[in-house]
């Protein structure tokens, strides 16, 4: 159970520290492109974690690169800010984008575990409406629970990006949005209150 260190990092870390060799046969009418994308994303992460020549710092850097390449953080951040995005000034938006990226990277890319024998299996792919697909997967922790993880993937200009990770029904997007909304509300509705908290967090 040492692999379990947080609910989303759980997914991300387990996902990347996991054998992606598991076969996936597209069972639906979908073309399976998003499922293949998720498996490839995990594959590069697996190579990183299995590479014993890397120092912890290099490992973290590599994880950060994979995170930034595979996830649409600007879109995730904008959704997390919700209706406050529209009211924010250009300067607040720019600062929020850069703080949010650091916040996510710092939350998830630190204290990476090593490969602990987890297995990863893509179980299906569904249409997510518009240009979105949802790739459903399961992660089996050795001697532990089986964790359901859904990946919402968006296609934009020929590139695929993860826009949400849902672990056992808990969405990263919704959780982040609820938390940010609460911080803003408690700062009298000011986006600046959230920016201050994030600044303090990422330093």
């Amino acid at each position, binding site marked *: 159970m040492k692999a379990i*260190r*947080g609910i989303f990092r759980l997914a991300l870390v387990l996902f990347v520290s996991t054998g992606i060799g598991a076969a996936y046969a597209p069972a639906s009418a979908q073309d399976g492109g998003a499922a293949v994308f998720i498996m490839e994303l995990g594959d590069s992460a697996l190579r990183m974690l299995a590479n014993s020549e890397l120092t912890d710092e290099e490992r973290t850097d590599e994880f950060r690169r994979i995170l930034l390449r595979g996830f649409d953080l600007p879109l995730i951040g904008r*959704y997390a800010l919700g209706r406050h995005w529209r009211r924010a000034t250009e300067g607040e938006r720019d600062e929020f984008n850069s703080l949010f990226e650091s916040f996510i990277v710092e939350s998830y890319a630190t204290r990476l575990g090593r490969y602990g024998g987890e297995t990863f299996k893509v179980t299906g792919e569904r249409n997510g409406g518009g240009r979105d697909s949802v790739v459903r997967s399961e992660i089996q922790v050795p001697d532990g629970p089986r964790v359901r993880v859904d990946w919402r993937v968006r296609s934009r200009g020929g590139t695929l990006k993860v826009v949400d990770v849902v672990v056992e029904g808990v969405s990263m997007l919704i959780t982040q949005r609820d938390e940010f909304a609460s911080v803003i509300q408690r700062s009298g509705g000011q986006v600046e209150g959230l920016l201050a908290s994030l600044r303090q967090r990422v330093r």
Partner: protein
Amino acid sequence: MRPGAVLILASALFFGACAVQSDVSENESPTVNDPLEPYNRYMFAVNDALDGGVIRPAAEAYRFVIPQPGRRAILNFLRNLESPVTLANDVLQGEVGRASVTSARFIINTTVGVAGLFDAAGAMGFERHSEDFGQTLGVYGAGGGPYFVLPIFGPSNFRDTFGMGVDVFFDPVNLWAGNTEREGVALIRTLVRGIDLRSRTIETLDEIERTSIDYYATIRSLYRQTREDEIRNGDLAPLPELGAD
């Protein structure tokens, strides 16, 4: 009867009555429903202090003293005792297939699994699930109602507090303990359940706290989403509207 259970039941009945009225109009888009936030934040802090002083140390001691196979057996035993409550709620929800699985698990684990210490049924492919009366109400369309942090027990809402009271009241183990003046047994069971649960969530909660800027709001969101997932029995949630961009 147990004073604790009476208290919970009484408050549940009170809040349950409010919950039924206010929940009908709750729409699909998840919104934060927390009119008691000042009280809730206060109780959250009280629970957190209690956790740091008593519950967490007890959970750590539990881990330290009892090796993993022993804790596994205790967890299996506790879960097997929950089977009647899950079964009753499977039936109330009209889930025939899931009710059969729960029954099969209970029979197999009580016999082959040596009074529930081993999950023999799980090894045979009968996968465990858990149901409670809060979920049953949810299946019939009741929303969660206002978020409500219970003393000691932590995150809940009006519906689930009421559901918890109903489950506690009708739990055969509690009925048996109450009828035979073995209230201590019911109390010890609740205590071990709590310590076991805490011992399995130390790292996860630490991590959530570390990565949160508003720990209270994050836990509130996780509670709501987890309950909705349990009510859907793990089906895909309606996707949040992300916009076309």
